[in-house]
């Protein structure tokens, strides 16, 4: 009642009148004028206090009630701290886990690109590449001539945007004197305007900037924050990219982290035409940049459909143009080569995430959903048990005149307190968990919970609050006033219907627990399998980092790497050093066909002719600890002046040189322009990732091939591998002060990045499985001990009638074992269903892995026994006399 009927002035007036009347009366009794007034005031007491309480009363009555409810509820919760603690923690864990997973899912799968009208954006896809061209991604990247042709077709698109990273990982940048690494893309002039990305500071690029290859850059909001502390003075500063100065002209909108799948772009520059800034950081191919090279399909394209043009219409308009553009500079198609097909995919979400994390996240969400169900059921049961025990309190209060409304308000207040405390804890918990998740999954974009996540959490909490308030209501109100007098422990506590509900809930929890344990078991075994997969090399003691030097000429490049290797070799603690073009365990590989003895090898039954190749330096296999089976490793003595040499793996020899001594054979590129002699055969080992099967491989010697670009340096050191990095950094900077170490890490970590999603998945599953077990245990324990308490009198009677303690214990255990059995029977088919859904995420373990199922069943049974042990022993220690006398 916030409305006030009377003003404070009116009340003050009344008090004044009171004092006058009182003084009049006192005067009438014969007191003096002064004395009467004094006495009147003394009798009244503090006028101020009276006015104050009047004031408060009118305005704060509702709040006052709330405060009273809160105080009362807090007091009654504090009286059972164990209950309050369990309930709050359960809510926090259940809701927190859901919030964390949902915030990742929201950031990764649900959030739209922070651009204008994401619905009208499409990625351009091609069915394939023309034969004889190089590519980055078979379906997603195209050549510059294709881009150049398509952008002249203005009717289908309102803008067409090309973008391409400056490197497969990070590039060298510098703002002051200290070299750093950052992720950067080259983009067409329409990048910001066409996507509709706001720039809170400065401006984006224009078509002229692209045409002039202007040395400008726009940095991301994140990078601005991280590197420049959001200083507005950043505009006009010089950002050196691979040593090339660019002027920072803008900062992109908060939340926009570029279009690179799974990555977070730090800066963008207009499409360039200089050697230092070739697409993907590649060295020139045949002296050609990406712009001049129709054989290198390296650009990603995104377009905004013109208003009113559907995807189908746009494709119809562009298909023929695309096909002819795809032949530019390539001559006529080879025999049997099919024409390419252009297609679109929606670009409204972040690119690439769905493939990488879609399934794992959806399954995780389902898992935490189960955990939440278990948690909410637990708290509801706890509350129901607690309120049933308070039935007499409620009855008494009803008898004393408390309305149902008041009781309801108070129960709701209690559940609100639990839910609020639990919710606050859950939010803190989710913040931490989301950060951990991002680390494990190596998701670089921001996972910070946003408004959607907050709404989600609030929604869950509101449901919980109402559920917790309502569930026990039935119990509380069931007892009417008279019950207070009639009730006694022996007669009142047999409410068959309610305990059946409780049993069903516990059995369901058991079933869910089985499902979670089986899921977790399968994923953990997958992780163990992955972690224990032999890599085929001695990976401990290896550290790897990238360098991207400015290479004005082939000779200068070769000198740079020779100097670098020899300077690093002599550092204390370093056993050996080598270089490689593709970093092992990075997920990248260079795939092509290779000539064997002057021709493309015959493969029986149309098998695969693909060879994975890499460029390696001296001592490559020695450094990595990969056994050389025949011949020798690359050596310093293999130079540009000695005959070109190559090394192959077992699989290559088996497939293309079966039954022959591989040494001395000649292998080379599929265009026949580079040929080398096989000087060694090495044992098959993991190359691109941990979960791959062997594939034919060949290595070129880095000092001999007519191409030098960025490389990764691999060092085998004594002691902690990362400790060498500062010294290595100094060595690198002696050679070129512009160079940072790019993505330095141990080789083990590098390989682990290829199982990061499984890693995250398994760790989380493990955690949620454990959580489920703990929750189910507390739930079962709570339910059982509640039932034992209520049956104290009954147990007393039984014991008085001669039941042994063993029989009593068995009675309690039988109860929980029956529930467990039902739970297991219901849970196993569900678990099989989940196992099937997990299939694609498993490695080296079958969805029906019997060991996992056995362990889950044993686990649940153990939990049930443990949870029943305490209540059972309490039942056994019931003193029949005391039990009967109680009440």
């Amino acid at each position, binding site marked *: *009642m916030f409305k006030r*009927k*009377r003003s404070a002035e009116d*009340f003050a*007036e*009344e*008090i004044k*009148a*009171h004092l*006058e*009347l*009182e003084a*009049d*009366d006192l005067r009438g009794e014969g007191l003096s004028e002064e004395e009467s007034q004094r006495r009147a005031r003394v*009798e*009244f*007491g*503090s006028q101020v*206090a*009276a006015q104050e*309480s*009047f004031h408060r*009363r*009118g305005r704060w009555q509702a709040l006052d009630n709330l405060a009273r409810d809160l105080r009362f509820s807090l007091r009654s919760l504090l009286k059972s701290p164990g209950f309050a603690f369990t309930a709050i923690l359960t809510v926090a864990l259940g809701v927190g886990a859901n919030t964390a997973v949902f915030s990742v899912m929201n950031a990764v799968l649900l959030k739209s690109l922070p651009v204008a009208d994401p619905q009208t954006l499409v990625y351009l896809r091609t069915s394939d590449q023309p034969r004889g061209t190089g590519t980055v991604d078979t379906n997603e990247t195209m050549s510059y001539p294709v881009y150049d042709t398509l952008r002249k077709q203005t009717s289908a698109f309102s803008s067409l945007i090309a973008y391409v990273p400056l490197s497969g990982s990070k590039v060298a940048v510098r703002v002051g004197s200290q070299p750093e690494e950052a992720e950067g893309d080259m983009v067409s002039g329409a990048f910001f305007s066409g996507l509709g990305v706001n720039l809170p500071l400065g401006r984006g690029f224009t078509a002229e900037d692209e045409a002039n290859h202007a040395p400008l850059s726009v940095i991301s909001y994140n990078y601005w924050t991280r590197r420049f502390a959001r200083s507005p003075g950043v505009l006009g500063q010089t950002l050196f990219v691979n040593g090339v100065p660019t002027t920072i002209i803008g900062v992109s909108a908060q939340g926009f982290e570029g279009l690179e799948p799974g990555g977070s772009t730090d800066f963008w520059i207009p499409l360039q035409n200089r050697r230092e800034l070739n697409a993907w950081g590649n060295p020139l191919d045949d002296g050609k940049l990406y712009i001049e090279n129709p054989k290198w399909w390296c650009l990603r394209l995104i377009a905004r459909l013109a208003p009113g043009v559907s995807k189908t219409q746009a494709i119809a308009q562009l298909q023929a143009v695309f096909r002819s553009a795809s032949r530019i500079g390539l001559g006529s198609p080879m025999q049997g080569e099919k024409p390419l097909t252009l297609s679109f995919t929606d670009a409204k979400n972040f690119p690439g995430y769905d493939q990488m994390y879609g399934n794992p996240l959806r399954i995780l969400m389902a898992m935490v959903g189960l955990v939440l169900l278990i948690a909410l059921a637990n708290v509801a049961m706890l509350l129901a048990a607690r309120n049933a025990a308070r039935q007499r309190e409620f009855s008494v209060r009803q008898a004393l005149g408390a309305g149902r409304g008041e009781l309801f308000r108070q129960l709701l207040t209690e559940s609100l307190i639990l839910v609020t405390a639990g919710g606050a804890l859950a939010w803190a918990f989710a913040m931490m968990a989301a950060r951990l998740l991002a680390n494990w999954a190596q998701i670089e974009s921001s996972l910070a919970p946003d408004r959607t996540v907050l709404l989600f959490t609030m929604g869950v909490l509101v449901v919980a609050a109402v559920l917790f308030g309502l569930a026990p209501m039935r119990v509380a109100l069931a007892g009417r006033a008279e019950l207070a007098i009639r009730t006694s422990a022996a007669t009142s506590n047999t409410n068959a219907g309610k305990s059946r509900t409780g049993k069903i809930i516990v059995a369901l929890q058991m079933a869910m627990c089985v499902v979670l344990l089986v899921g977790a078991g399968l994923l953990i075994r997958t992780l163990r399998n992955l972690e224990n997969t032999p890599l085929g090399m001695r990976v401990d003691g290896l550290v790897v980092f990238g360098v991207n030097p400015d290479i004005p000429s082939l000779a200068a490049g070769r000198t740079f790497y020779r100097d670098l290797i020899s300077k690093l070799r002599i550092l204390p603690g370093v056993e050996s050093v080598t270089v490689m073009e593709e970093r092992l365990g990075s997920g990248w590989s260079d795939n092509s066909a290779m000539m064997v003895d002057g021709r493309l090898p015959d493969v029986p039954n149309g098998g695969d002719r693909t060879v994975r190749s890499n460029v390696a330096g001296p001592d490559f296999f020695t450094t990595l600890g990969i056994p050389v089976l025949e011949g020798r490793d690359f050596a310093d003595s293999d130079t540009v002046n000695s005959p070109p040499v190559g090394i192959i793996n077992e699989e290559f020899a088996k497939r293309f040189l079966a039954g022959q001594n591989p040494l001395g054979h000649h292998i080379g590129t599929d265009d026949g322009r580079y040929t080398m002699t096989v000087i060694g055969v090495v044992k098959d080992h993991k190359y691109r990732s941990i979960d791959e099967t062997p594939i034919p491989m060949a290595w070129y010697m880095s000092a001999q091939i007519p191409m030098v670009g960025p490389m990764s340096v691999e060092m085998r050191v004594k002691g902690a591998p990362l400790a060498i990095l500062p010294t290595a950094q100094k060595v690198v900077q002696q050679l070129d002060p512009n160079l940072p170490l790019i993505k330095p890490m141990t080789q083990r970590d590098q390989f682990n990045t290829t199982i990061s999603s499984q890693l995250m998945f398994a760790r989380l599953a493990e955690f949620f499985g454990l959580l489920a077990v703990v929750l189910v245990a507390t739930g079962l324990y709570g339910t059982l001990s509640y039932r034992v308490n209520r049956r104290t009198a009954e147990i007393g009677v039984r014991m008085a009638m001669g039941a042994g303690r063993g029989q009593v214990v068995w009675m309690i255990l039988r109860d929980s074992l029956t529930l467990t059995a039902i739970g297991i029977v219901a849970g196993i088919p569900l678990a099989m269903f989940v196992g099937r859904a997990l299939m694609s995420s498993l490695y080296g373990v079958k969805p029906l892995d019997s060991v996992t199922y056995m362990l889950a069943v044993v686990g649940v049974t153990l939990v049930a026994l443990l949870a029943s042990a305490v209540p059972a022993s309490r039942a056994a220690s019931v003193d029949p006399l005391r039990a009967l006398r109680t009440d």
Partner: protein
Amino acid sequence: MPTQENNDERIALLQGTLDILILKTLILGPCHGQGVARSIQRQSEEVLFVDHGSLYLALQRLEDKKLIQAKWGTSENNRKARFYSLTAKGRAELLEKTSQWKRLTRAMDLILDPAADLQGEEA
């Protein structure tokens, strides 16, 4: 008997009883706050002491509950004062509360002084 204050014959009112007393006073006709206080003190032979702060709060509470109503008027000695009077609802409440109170005091007496013949302890 309720506890007494040490050297004072006056007793602070039991919580919740003030409302009945006010209603009872007002059944005789409209009265202002000061009059109500005086009347309670006088009728209880100065045993009951009315804290004026609580009195006005109680008056306000009763008014909010529509058990009494108030309007400004003039007292017999020509002073402006706010006069309270019972509503129909107030009358009904008074009847109910009075009978409740009688049952309570009777029960209390039976326990505290079972030997004595009902010495009606009217408040």
